């Protein structure tokens, strides 16, 4: 499943790095604590969070995540958008809650093998 397909099916609004949506998603991780994400998320994962400050881009970039889904209608800060474009990290937005998004990811076959 690619990010592009996820955007269509969940659905998600593409906020940054539209050019990077072809990447295959290897699994997912959900947390609002960046330290947990650093410890557990894996390369190619999609990360579901309601954090929107610029550090999320640094984390995603460091771990080579496929992209970040920001839930509950939170808009990323201007600095976050700028960094994400620079680093080529797709930020996808939705009004759905993290719980619902993760549920849909599971239904679509994006699962994390713990």
């Amino acid at each position: 499943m690619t990010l592009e397909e996820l955007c269509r099916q969940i659905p998600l609004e593409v906020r940054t790095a539209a050019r990077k949506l072809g990447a295959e998603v290897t699994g997912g991780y959900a947390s609002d604590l960046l330290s947990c994400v650093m410890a557990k998320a894996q390369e190619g994962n999609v990360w579901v969070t309601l954090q929107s400050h610029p550090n999320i881009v640094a984390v995603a970039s460091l771990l080579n995540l496929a992209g970040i889904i920001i839930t509950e209608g939170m808009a990323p800060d201007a600095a976050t958008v700028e960094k994400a474009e620079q680093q080529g990290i797709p930020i996808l937005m939705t009004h759905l809650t993290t719980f619902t998004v993760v549920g849909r990811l599971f239904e679509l076959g994006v699962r994390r093998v713990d």
Partner: protein
Amino acid sequence: MADWSDCMRELSLHILDALENSMEAGATSIELTIDEDLIADRLTITVGDNGRGMSETELARVFDPFFTTRSTRHVGLGIPLFKAAAERCNGGLTISSQLGEGTTLEAAFQHSHIDRAPLGDMTGTLLAVILSGSSGDLHYLHRVDGREFEFNTADIRAELEEVPLTHPAVRKWLQALIAAEEEELGRFASPSLLNSRKESS
């Protein structure tokens, strides 16, 4: 009252909650200091007031989320959440209080800690308090290493004479002043992860 889901995202929501506690304690003078010491890697938020203060029993209850949410309307869940946020970032939160004298809250964070939320919208937070119609005064000091932004509404009131702080022109001027100064300071204290890390592309 703050929207709790935002507390995870911005420290300013915790600060607003602490300031509201001070106002509800009848404080006529509140001192808010935000000290960002990048060399010591420490962010310290201090809220001091001259409100009615708390007894030792009341003070103990402030840290009990089950008790405070049910019984003491003027405290709320805010302190336990603020404390948890600070402790998660190698810091802590302490409150000292004296009945009839006032209360001082101090929250400390490791500035560069990955889970430390950014300060967030300090302009909105300060304006909410200044324009709340409370007759109390706010002394604000925000320090980032050697740089400072400071104001005291008592001085501004004295300067304005009869014109209230809530006058549209004053409000607009305050908003612009605080936003500009906070933005300037923010430039020197921006999120640590992006600063400490080389651009990869």
